[in-house]
């Protein structure tokens, strides 16, 4: 960083000599470095009895570690893998996991504790001093390296034969494009896939739990029902991807309580069907407050008012939940009257 506008002498590097009041050992300076304090002997250094005790303690820890490893092997063989035990105060644990973990932990910990105790009590604790070397090279080394570099560059003629240099740069810059191209088939292009779901005119609303088509009488005020489109089964290859867009939640609201005109139009006798996928980042919304008709996404707490076009009343979601227009077919089952009119789930650039 250039410092041309701040005089060098005002920078800390220069101040060191002028203002630094430390470090120099001289009798005039009361804060002078007294040097490394003399080494103080530990009890083990003087008393061989104490040293013997330490030795025994270390050996005991290593021995107990061996015992713990044997305990690990015995537990592995002897304890059935589905046995549970009660351990106070933690609660019920898998016995095998508890025994293996504890014995392995002890075997390891005791090796460590033994080694550290050995180092602290029996190895020399006299502090030693290493001088530091300069991190950067001395000037003559630098000069030599630069000269070598210039020589090498000159011999390669990279500066003189510009055509060679420039075409080489061109080739080196272009070839990674092949790698980028190869990434193309990581996935298909989005197309309009995010705009369509399995719902279409005439598809029955199937109860997610019972797998039966829903009738209006199945949906009572205060209940929350999850539905999927007719024909989508759990075993289907594309089930996960399709349900990620098509999941539906159905509630019944007294028609008088529905504040949004379009919502009322798209409902059937107060039964409204909304996308279950949050418009924030796609969590399934699953908490329903019967009295207020608010639904809450448990992931990021976006809250929507189902009695008012599912508009956002709190949280980070950016727009209302899409509503599915529903009606009743000739046989009295709830059916979709088309796909969602807008993309479900999180927003994206092309959504519009």
């Amino acid at each position, binding site marked *: *960083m250039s410092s041309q*506008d701040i005089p060098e002498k005002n920078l800390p590097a220069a101040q060191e000599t002028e203002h630094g009041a430390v470090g120099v050992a001289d009798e005039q300076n009361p804060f002078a470095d007294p040097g490394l304090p003399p080494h103080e002997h530990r009890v083990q250094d003087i008393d061989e009895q104490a040293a013997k005790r330490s030795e025994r303690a270390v050996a005991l820890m290593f021995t107990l570690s061996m015992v713990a490893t044997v305990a690990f092997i015995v537990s592995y063989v002897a304890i059935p893998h589905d046995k549970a035990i009660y351990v106070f105060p933690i609660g019920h644990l898998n016995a095998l996991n508890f025994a293996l973990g504890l014995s392995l*932990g002890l075997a390891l910990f005791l090796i*460590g504790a033994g080694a550290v105790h050995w180092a602290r009590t029996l190895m020399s604790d006299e*502090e030693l*001093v*290493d001088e530091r070397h300069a991190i950067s090279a001395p000037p003559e080394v630098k000069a030599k390296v630069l000269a070598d570099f210039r020589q090498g560059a000159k011999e390669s003629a990279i500066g003189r034969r510009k055509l060679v240099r420039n075409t080489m740069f061109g080739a080196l810059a272009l070839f990674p494009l092949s790698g980028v191209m190869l990434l193309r088939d990581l996935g298909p292009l989005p197309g309009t896939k995010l705009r369509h779901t399995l719902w279409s005119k005439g598809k029955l609303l199937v109860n997610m739990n019972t797998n039966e088509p829903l009738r209006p009488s199945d949906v009572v005020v205060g209940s929350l029902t999850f539905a999927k489109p007719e024909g989508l089964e759990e075993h289907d290859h594309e089930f996960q991807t399709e349900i990620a867009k098509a999941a539906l939640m159905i509630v019944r609201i007294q028609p008088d309580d529905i504040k949004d005109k379009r919502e009322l139009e798209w409902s059937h006798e107060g039964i409204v069907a909304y996308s279950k996928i949050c418009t924030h980042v796609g969590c399934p919304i699953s908490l329903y407050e019967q009295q207020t008709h608010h639904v809450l996404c448990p992931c990021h707490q976006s809250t929507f008012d189902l009695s008012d076009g599912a508009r956002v009343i709190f949280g980070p979601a*950016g727009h209302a939940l899409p509503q599915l227009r529903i009606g009743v077919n000739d046989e009295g089952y709830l059916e979709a009257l088309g796909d969602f009119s807008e993309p479900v789930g999180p*927003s994206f*650039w092309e959504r519009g």
Partner: protein
Amino acid sequence: MSTTKNSDARSSREKAPAGERVADWADGRLGIYSLAKANMRKIFPDHWSFMLGEVCMYSFIIIILTGVYLTLFFHPSMNEVEYHGSYIPLQGQLMSEAFNSTMHISFDVRGGLLIRQIHHWAALIFLAGMFVHMMRVFFTGAFRKPREVNWLFGFLLFVLGMFTGFTGYSLPDDLLSGTGVRFMEGAVLSVPVVGTYLSFFLFGGEFPGGDFVARFYSVHVLLLPGIMLGLMVAHLILVFYHKHTQFAGPGKTNNNVVGMPLLPVYMAKAGGFFFLVFGVIAVISAIATINPIWSMGPYRPDQVSTGAQPDWYMGFSEGLIRVMPGWEINFWGHTLVLGVFIPLMIFPLVLVAIAVYPFIESWVTGDKREHHILDRPRNVPTRTAFGVAWITWYMVLLIGGGNDLWATHFHLSINAITWFVRIAFFVAPVLAFIVTKRICLGLQRRDKDKVLHGRESGIIKRLPHGEFIEVHEPLSQEALHTLTAHEQYEPAMIGATVDENGVERKVKGTEKLRAKLSKSYYGEDSQIPKPTAEEYKEITSGHGHH
């Protein structure tokens, strides 16, 4: 060592001992004697905070060991299968092979659950260890020249560790982690212009598709750990090359390093510490269940549970996304999803803020010297205040990330918590900065007081004429030196803008900013002048008792 003794004693015809012959063989091919000469008795200084980096290194090794074991049983596939393992409640459930094999590891491989739990616990401790280790390096100024590059290596390890953790806990394809992956998909979709393309390329089509587990798997077990291993080796090589920093103290200078030799003391201490870390993690894994995928069940995009939380190190990004207002701008048939995209952009900024700090500070100070003596945080109030402000920011976001848990555990309104975080995001770091700086200055004053007047002994003395005084004990020479060893900068000044000939000197805006920042670091309000030798002599010469 006995070998040296023997080699002196034996005649030249005798064969060298086996160990020495092996070492000779290796030296002839690898040059190990020169390597050992430089490093075998290398000195490491002692301080508890220097162990934090070791915790990271050891937990990383534990993660690799247990991770390799887990790959022997884990099937990174999203093919749907029916569960028929020994966990009764999920019998007959449809699930991906990834989830199925994780269930198999947890219930039917003996010790499999333990290894899974050690792997996960070690990952959490690895990230926590790196976080605290970075704080140590930050607050003591260990990132200064010549260690800025190593700070960046460490920073990259932290960020890569976060993503390795994320891809790792997404692999079992359980309900909780799938929700996290969905969140990631929503965040990717919010990117202007290319978001949908990125998402389709990432997931091989629409979410969730059948590819992401296999893709995350190769990223999690090969790509990221490979880079991290390289970075960690480079990090350690630099630690060796730079030699360790040390705190100021008697006998410790910027040109030496005082401590214990690698062989034998640190070999035993650091080597033993690996076993201590491994042992503690194993015991934790024996008694504390983590990520019980069996109780969460396999992932279904239309199901979720309450209280969904990422692992702790992703919590701050969760906070960002939760408290951001849901702004969306629609124009010309396009949508700008600011409510998600802004948090997605702040996420790296939060991290980059600490990555670039060493370079900002060295620019402000203009200091080009090597620093091997650590700062006490109080002696650099502005840096310390920045660090605490950053941590406060991070913690506020963590609160935001767990706003539902705060609400349910403390019976608070979730709306109130969200609003608190929205405001605190801007206000709390500023408050933390001011408070920290004041505390640092207070501590500096106390140090100065201690140097000039000695330590409060707690002994009250009654003088013959009835006056009570407290006896202060003078500090030892060691303590006096330690408390006054820090350097105090003077702020960089622009100097006169008009020279002696009356010619005006132009000053760049960046230099003005630099001078301003320098003043906020080292101005009168930002440090207490150290006691000088004159002050000390005057007070201790007799009439100084107060």
